[in-house]
């Protein structure tokens, strides 16, 4: 995780290993998790964006990130660090089924 420029915005990234990429079920899981945090969270397929709102299921699903692509996150807000930790863990653990 790293600080983004001079702004109070954090960044993180994770490699997506899920067999068919960021398809329907992983997209739903990612969006639901992002929505659990107050921070503004963006998702991109490159470190420079373009960025989409990670809390928008329609936009997350439309990224169609394939297997072996890297997901980039940036978050801004009081719980940004926890949000990025949770999202990176979700991707690294290959989108396990929640409780």
């Amino acid at each position, binding site marked *: 995780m790293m600080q983004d420029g001079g702004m109070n915005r954090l960044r993180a990234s994770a490699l997506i290993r899920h067999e068919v990429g960021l398809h*329907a*079920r992983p997209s*739903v899981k990612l*969006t*639901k998790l992002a*929505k*659990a945090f107050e921070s503004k969270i963006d998702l991109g397929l490159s470190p420079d964006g373009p960025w989409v709102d990670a*809390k*928008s*299921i*329609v936009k997350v699903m439309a990224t169609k990130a394939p297997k072996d692509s890297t997901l980039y996150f940036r978050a801004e807000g009081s719980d940004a660090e926890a949000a990025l930790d949770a999202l990176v863990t979700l991707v690294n653990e290959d989108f396990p089924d*929640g409780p």
Partner: protein
Amino acid sequence: MKGNVGIVIVSHSADVARGTALMVEQMVGREVPLGWCGGDPDGGLGTSVEAILAAIDKAWSEQGVAILVDLGGAETNSEMAIEMLPESRRSRVVVCNAPVVEGAVMAATEAASGAPLDVVRRTAEELTPA
């Protein structure tokens, strides 16, 4: 207000409605109140106002209910069902202008976060080209 917005799926086909409900349950989870109906009482294709009312009742939430429909009669019968609801509930039920399967999954994902009815509806309708 407490709880998540409920989702109702109305299709001409019982199989489509049941399958869509299964997708919502398995992709999004069970934290969203869910009702579905499809087909006529003889097992053919169709929709019925009574069945839609029962599905709304099953999915009822104080936060309201978003209905996803497939074609023609599913929409008009859903609107008729809404008109037959008690006045206190009528303003808290909307029919979304969205494809039934995709709209149901998107709406439920939004609803699972506790979003209000107008946001749930807007998310489902994001799928529909303007």
